[in-house]
């Protein structure tokens, strides 16, 4: 266990020093890392549902939107404290996820993909429709910067620390879940629900509770996004956003926490490198994903761990039981 302690301290040190060292104090690099952190949370939380519990969802953006707009509306119109608004967003997403999850998760395969896509489309249309509340398609303005314990995080560097503290928290929670008996239960549900139920696993309940957890993490990411942007528009929460997050999970490596996180970072940093040749970007993203899906079944992270294993950097995956 000692080795793990040292490594996690090293990780936290890196995150703490990042803005000061590599990125310089320029807001741009902290902002990039903030967006990266938000999408890492979205990818990991979706992977909990898709990679571990085996439930395909194209509706992750719905709860991302609920979190963002809860934070946006409550802080702008009802000038609630950002922390309070975030908590309301979390609980609202949790309740909706529990209510919807129970009925939708009875479905499987393409049906489940379509029902969750319908969920995201309904949320998107309602946000545009309820114009007086959400600012509709023209958007919600002047969302204040995040404030906690009296410190207002209007500079991107401060907010970077808060966002990545949340990212670390989400990673720790997800690792705790998948390393516990619950992780095994999800694996059983993913493999064969019927066989799992004959061991006393209430598949409907466990799937719904995972759906609720995953949706609440997405809502957290939404609240963080609202205070980063300072402005909210429905365009950022459409069906394409859900597809974008699903692509991150599979690009990085479905069924592994670090894989999903890496997929999110890779896909969000890619435009930084490819924004020069605009017309080819769409074709490029498609081809990259195709190459990964065909040649790297375990995703980009699978390749990296394989390389790592060759250099004796990482322990043998099998001996660590469930791969992270």
């Amino acid at each position, binding site marked *: 266990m000692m080795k793990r302690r040292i490594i996690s301290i090293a990780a936290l040190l890196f995150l703490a020093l990042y803005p000061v060292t590599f990125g310089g104090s320029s807001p741009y690099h902290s902002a990039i890392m903030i967006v990266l952190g938000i999408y890492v949370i979205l990818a990991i939380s979706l992977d909990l549902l898709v990679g571990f519990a085996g439930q395909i969802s194209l509706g992750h953006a719905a709860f991302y939107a609920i979190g963002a707009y809860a934070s946006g509306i409550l802080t702008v119109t009802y000038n609630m404290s950002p922390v309070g608004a975030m908590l309301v967003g979390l609980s609202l997403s949790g309740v909706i996820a529990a209510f919807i999850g129970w009925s939708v998760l009875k479905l499987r395969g393409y049906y489940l993909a379509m029902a969750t896509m319908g969920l995201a489309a309904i949320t998107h249309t309602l946000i545009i429709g309820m114009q007086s509340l959400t600012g509709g398609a023209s958007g919600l303005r002047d969302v204040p910067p995040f404030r906690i314990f009296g410190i207002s995080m209007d500079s991107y560097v401060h907010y970077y620390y808060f966002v990545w503290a949340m990212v670390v928290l989400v990673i720790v929670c997800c690792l705790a879940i998948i390393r*516990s008996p619950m*992780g095994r239960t999800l694996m059983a549900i993913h493999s064969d629900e*019927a066989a799992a139920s*004959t061991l006393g696993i209430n598949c409907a309940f466990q799937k719904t509770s995972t759906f609720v957890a995953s949706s609440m993490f997405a809502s957290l990411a939404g609240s963080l996004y609202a205070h980063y942007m300072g402005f909210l528009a429905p365009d950022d929460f459409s069906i394409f956003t859900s597809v974008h997050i699903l692509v991150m999970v599979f690009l990085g490596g479905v069924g592994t926490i670090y894989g999903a996180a890496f997929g999110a970072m890779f896909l969000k940093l890619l435009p930084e490198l490819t924004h020069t040749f605009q017309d080819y970007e769409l074709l490029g993203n498609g081809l990259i994903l195709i190459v990964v899906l065909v040649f790297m079944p375990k995703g980009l992270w699978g390749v990296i761990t394989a390389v790592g294993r060759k250099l004796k950097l990482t322990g043998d995956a*099998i001996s660590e039981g469930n791969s992270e």
Partner: protein
Amino acid sequence: MTTNGNDILRLKNVTKTFSGVAAVNDVSFNVNKGIIKALIGPNGAGKTTLLNMISGLLEPDSGYIYFEADTISHSPPHEIARCGIGRTFQLLRLFTANNATVLDNVMLGANNKLKPNILKSLFLRAQTNKAEKSTREAAFEILKLVGLENAAYLSPLTLSFGSQRMVELARALMSQPKLLLLDEPASGLNDAEVDEFMETLLTIKEKGVTILLIEHNMKVVMNLADDITVIDFGEKIAEGNPHKIANDPEVIRAYLGDDHIGERD
């Protein structure tokens, strides 16, 4: 049908039809506590359907299934499992997602004891880790019982067919069931493996676990079964101890066809 106080499972007029065809038609039988009961009959007689109904994967169209004091005819599979019924499957159903290991499969049997949920794994980490350790030890015990302790960290797919059957048995045993349903556990085993399997069954029986067994291997049935029910075309045609069943004309006709009856008399 002798109904004395100590039967653990009772089926009463259980019927199940699939689009008009009566897979199981008005079957009733009891299983006494602590015995090995065998369900035999030609292929397609409805034995697996019966087992699926007892374990809750299928619901009977009519009739009742009682387990100890509860009526479980229409309970969902996970509730039936929690009452203390474990089972294995005719076609192997091991867990293989997220590179699961043999140990993972077996430890999943302890679900009823561990009762895992998200909140526990987040907030009661210490308690879950302690329970996890004791479960791991119990799992290794059972793996020793079926002789697979050194395959714990392997993927189940890398094992032989016989060993995979043993993993499924170990998984079912891990849930410390009162009643164990086995669906053709000996099929696909060579002779040495069958003998070993029979010893394992006896040790399980000594631990007080009642066993309801579907099996074609007559060596296992005739040597181990205390009581046998014969099912043919979804109906019960005979019941009794192995000796009585071996000479029952109805059973012979069901297995060997009509013309043999003349020879025996």
